[in-house]
């Protein structure tokens, strides 16, 4: 816990754990020591559902560059989906 840089965000979706899918309720995003990735610090994302206990967690540990590329890619894909009118929020507005 050497940087203490962490933020939580409520999210909706599902994640595939070791045995089955579970409903997501939160993502915990930190920049701190990873457990596995070969860096001193990493951009860590834990996709969790606390109501299902600590094992309901999908862990991702990314390098700084990988994290920035991932964010850009996610936004790019969302932009493309929006341009095509595929977003759920757009479809709900359609009569």
């Amino acid at each position, binding site marked *: *816990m*050497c*940087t*203490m840089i*962490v933020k*939580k965000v409520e999210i909706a979706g599902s994640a595939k754990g070791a045995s089955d899918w579970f409903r997501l309720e939160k993502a*915990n995003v*930190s920049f*701190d*020591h990873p*457990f596995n990735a*070969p*860096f*001193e*610090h990493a951009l*860590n994302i*834990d996709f*969790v559902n*606390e109501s299902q*206990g*600590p*094992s309901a*967690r999908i*862990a991702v540990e990314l390098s700084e560059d990988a994290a920035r590329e991932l964010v850009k890619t996610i936004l790019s894909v969302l932009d493309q989906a929006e341009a095509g009118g595929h977003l759920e929020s757009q479809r709900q507005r359609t009569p």
Partner: protein
Amino acid sequence: MYTTDMYEGLLAETITLTGANGERINAYLARPLGAGPFPAIVLAHHMPGWDQWYREVALKFALRGYVSLSPNLYFRSGHGTPEDIAAKVRAEGGIPDDQAVGDLAGALGYLRASAYTNGKVGIFGTCSGGRHAYLAACRAPGFDAVVDCWGGRVVMKPEELNSNFPVAPIDYTKDLPCPILGLFGNEDSSPSPEQVDLHEAELKKNNKVYEFYRYDGAGHGFFYYHRPNYRQEQAVDGWQKLFAFLEKYLG
């Protein structure tokens, strides 16, 4: 040191002890077989949790003739794999300093009450455990030596203080009752070499007995042989200095 004609044996097991606020927590105890009396050491585990590495360290100390006790500082965050529990603690922003000090003081009390200890108890920690070890040594009376391995956030900015971390550990330095050994990597960012300088200056100002060793070519966690930041030469030297220090003050 053992010789090849000796019998030796260890006992290692999970126990429970009374920690902060009188609450029961679990802990890993490793000790040489026999009546002793043996010197003892409390192990403050690191941010990745009450994990395999700390069990191995407990066994390492026991092999060297110490009763070692590693309390589960994340006990209150539930049970599961060490990584899952540590990730939960990370998301919660860490554990309160008062709680950690209370649990480590509980481990000290357990060892002092044991029939096979010699009355001398040290405390060792790495990473966040180095910070917790220093806090406990300053705030929980009774430790005879402290080993701080690359403990980050001993020096803290005012904006980093909150209800969980109300006082920067460096500000307790005047209360430190025992010698301290510090091992640090010069390529570490937490603690940075500048922060280690500040800590050393504070120890000097308060006339404390200290030994600080700073290693070139090493960063954070250079004892961790399972991580890429392991540095063989520096780690071997660090362990030698560590056991020499403990022999001097606990032996």
